[in-house]
Structures are given as C-alpha cells and as structure tokens.
C-alpha cells in the first residue's frame, strides 16, 4: 500500500472511533511518546505553544478519555468528522512521514441542533514502520480562534 493510502486509512479509522463513540480505541492510533495538541491558527502562526488539549504521551490521551468517561460533565453530543485527503509533505531522515489533512467537524448536541463546530487541518507526523500507521505527532490547527461552549471530545 502506498503512503497516501496508508495514512488516509488510518485517519478514517481514527475519526470513526471518535464519531462512533469508540473513544477507548482512539489512543491506539498514537505512539507511546506521542504529542497531541489542539490549537488555533492564530496561536500556531504566532508561535504560541499552549493547546486546548495537549498530551505529551499516549498515556495522557488515555487519561483524557478516562476523564471524559468518569469525571467530566458535558452535554451529550456527537461529532461527525469529514476528513479531506492527506497531502504528503516530507519524509524525515528517520523515515517518518509528515502530512497535512483538512478536516471539518459537525457537532450534534442533545437538543438536536447540527452545528459546524470546527474546521482546520491536521499537521501529522506518521510512523509507518509497523503493522499500523501510528501518529508520533498530531497538531490540530483550528481555523477559528473561537470554540463554542466547551471542547469535550477530541478533534
């Protein structure tokens, strides 16, 4: 399978976990020492490092899901991801591959409204050496600097 197809398949499978409430499987798409960050175009452009969600390991992604299941209060909701085709940007010296992929996420809240919740791009670093494509890094760059009400589920 070519890189393009491998990455697109991994992205489709990953988004499906979030959208179909299989959140526990979501961290499995990342390497142990991964970096995951949700930020905005404004922060990204200005080089400001903070994120709205910011995991420095796969274990932190697991904690994020555990907190969503056990601790945090948020209105019942679901996402629907529409993910564009990945653009392969570069292959690093260690063989890992950088890609950029546009996304659109619609959020449906308990009362039934379907709202455009976020658009942006995934700036990814893929480890393609194993059986499955794994994310060593995913920077989620939201186009807007505004987030409605709360960001509960990962993007």
């Amino acid at each position: 399978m070519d890189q393009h197809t491998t990455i697109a398949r991994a992205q489709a499978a990953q988004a499906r976990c979030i959208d179909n409430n299989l959140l526990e499987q979501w961290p499995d798409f990342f390497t142990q020492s991964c970096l995951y960050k949700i930020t905005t175009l404004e922060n990204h452009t200005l080089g400001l490092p903070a994120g709205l969600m910011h995991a420095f390991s796969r274990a932190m992604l697991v904690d994020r899901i555990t907190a969503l299941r056990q601790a945090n209060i948020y209105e019942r909701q679901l996402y629907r991801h529409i993910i564009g085709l990945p653009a392969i940007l570069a292959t690093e010296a260690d063989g890992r591959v950088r890609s950029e992929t546009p996304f659109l996420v619609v959020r449906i809240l308990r009362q039934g409204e379907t709202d455009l919740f976020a658009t942006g791009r995934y700036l990814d670093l893929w480890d393609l050496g194993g059986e499955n494509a794994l994310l060593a890094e995913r920077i989620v760059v939201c186009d807007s600097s505004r987030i409605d009400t709360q960001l509960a589920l990962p993007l």
Partner: protein
Amino acid sequence: MNDQPADHGTDALPDWAPGLSRIPYWLFQRQDVADAERTRIFHGPSWNYLGLAAEVPNPGDYRCTWVGDTPVVMVRDDHGEVRAWENRCAHRGALIAVENQGNAKSFACVYHAWTYDQAGTLTSVAFQKGIKGQGGMPRDFDICQHGPRKLKIAVLCGLVFASFDHAAVPLEEYLGEAIVARVQRVFLGRTPKILGRFTQVLPNNWKLYAENTRDSYHASILHLFFTTFKINRLGMKGGIIVNHHGGCHVSWSSNTQPKASADDYSGLRADSGYQLADPTLLRGFDEFRDDVTLQILSVFPGFILQQIQNALAVRQMVPRGPDKADLHWTYFGFEEDTPEQTEVRLKMANLMGTGGFISMEDGCVGGFVQRGIAGAADQQALLMMGGHDADSQDSRVTESSIRGFWKAYRAAMGI
C-alpha cells in the same frame, strides 16, 4: 453607525427586593438590562482589564480589545506609556484598527483616512480644506473637538486596566489591599510571557459566568477532576476574601492535609477514585512563597486571574447581548521560566480553558441555567450558603463572594 441602544434607565425594570441572597432571573434575559450595564457599569467608574503590558512590549505595538462590548485599542506610545481609546472613528463610527494586533506610528481609518496618533487624538482629516477651494469641511470645524473616547489607564503587575470614567478611584483603592497583595503573589515581580490565547463562546449571560467564578461552593462538586486528585476539596485549608465594595474576590486553598474525610462526599459523584496513567500532568514546581495551590481572583466587572498549581491564566469577559458572552483566555508564564517550567505550564494547561479537565464544565453549566430559566423571569435564584452578607470567610462552603458581586452590581446600576 451607532448600534448601541441608549440607556433607557432602570425605571422600566421589575422590582428587586433589597438584599443580596435573592437574584431575579430577569437580570439575565433583558436587552434593557444589558444596555443599562453598558453605560452604568462598563462605561462607568469600574476598572476593566484590557490585556497584558507584555502584549504591547515595544513603542507602537497595539492590540484590539474590549471594555464590555465596546471595542477598544490598547497601544504603547513612543514614550513607553500604555494608552487606550475607543476603536471608533470620530467621523462615521468605523473601526479604526482592524487587525487583532500590530505596530503603528499612527492609525488611519480605512473608510475616509481620518488619522489618529497613538494616544487616539485626531490629527488629520483627509481633504479637510477640499480640493482647489471646492468642498471640504466647514471653516469652523475644530479638529480638537473630535475623537474617540480615551480611557484612563492603570497597570498593576503588568496587567493593564482601563476606565471610561476619568474620575474613577485609583485602581489599587478599587481593589483594596488584600486583593492587590493576592495579585502580586502570582507575579512576584516577573515579566509575563504569553503562552496562548483562546476564545470560549459562552451560551449565557455574562453575569452567570461572573457568578460561577465567584462560586467556591460548586468547585469540588461540579468539577470531579479536582476532587478526585485532591487538588481541591472544600475541607482543605482555604478561604474567601471579598473586598469592600464586594465586586472583587479571592478564593484560595492550600495543599496542607485535608481536614475532611471521604465521608463528607459520600452520596456525591465525587466519591469515585481513579488514577492518572501519566501522573506527570500534575507534577509541578514550587513557584510561590506559600502553600497556596489554587487561587481564583476576580475584579468587577469582568476580569479573572487564575492560578491552579502552575497553570496561570487571565480571563476577560465580553458580553454579547443578554444570552451570550465571549470569554477570552490568555495563558501565560514568565520570561524567567526555564524550558522545563514552561513544559510544566503547558501540561497543566490541560486543566483549564474550553477543554480543561477542571473547567470545561463551566462552559456548559451557564448554558444550563440560561435555558433553565427561560420561563422564569419572575422567579429568583437563592444565594444563602454562608449567610446573607458579602463578607470574607474562612470556609469556602459559602456564596459570600457571589453576593459580593451583586452588592457591587446593585451599587453600580442603582437598582
């Protein structure tokens, strides 16, 4: 264009019996209340947070910000002074600055090139004398008589505050000694460094969020993450400071051993236990000269300074009509931080903000209230935990600081 309805006064508002422990819901629903708040509170003798001085470090640096829903430009002038003026051209009302931030010697309105200096003073009017004796402004037009409103400025620990009312009492007097000391303990003379900015769109009246930030009673009940990891239990050593006019408060707790047993929380959601797979999330460093691990500080009407362990942020509330508000978060550390300390702050930033482990609930709970009171304009909220006054207390099982907000609110609104 002037899209601000005038303040029609408060005579048309329903009755509100004296006191601070019953809050009528019509306060969160009416456009005429929002209009009166604009003139009496935000344009009145209150102090409003504009931004950090560190956001405009060099001469000519500016940022667009707000006081209430009024757009304001914060500029550092060529003499190093921070200035602020309403972002509204004296000619026809267009925004003068149209970028979030930048650097400028002067500001020209894009509409007709009326030009302002860094202090917001009108310096030139395009074609004021017309062309070849034709057109132009009348001869008696006095450029000095026109310009956007200028704000009075005060800076505390690098936090820039402004007031539309040049007769406002000095900022430190407005805050009171105890609040000033609690601001200083966070900054400790260091230079703030911006780590990120995020805007949270709240589906509720701004005052519901103002109440929420002053509500020490809810913290360990709604926010289970807090409780489970013993960052904050109501039984921990802590307390509430409410200042003389009520509008400013500090809620704090320290990491000395909790006095409360687990039994205090039996029956609440808070009695589950779980552990972090990656405990480095909460691994902080000793930063402050005390054992205070949590401090939430508010300044009436719309400012919050937050310390949760090493996660620091300021929040600015911008009303957007009766049932919406923007909450602008600025995460910060200090220029003096080591790279390792910055990483700690970035990890702990997971606790706060729109998706924060311990603050995401605050985004939805205000909406629950706004929706819950839809048919209850004539009903009232109860604020009786800890009594009926707005005094400082050693217990956080109290709504004293929320009553403090309403004390300041009633005084400012004259209702």
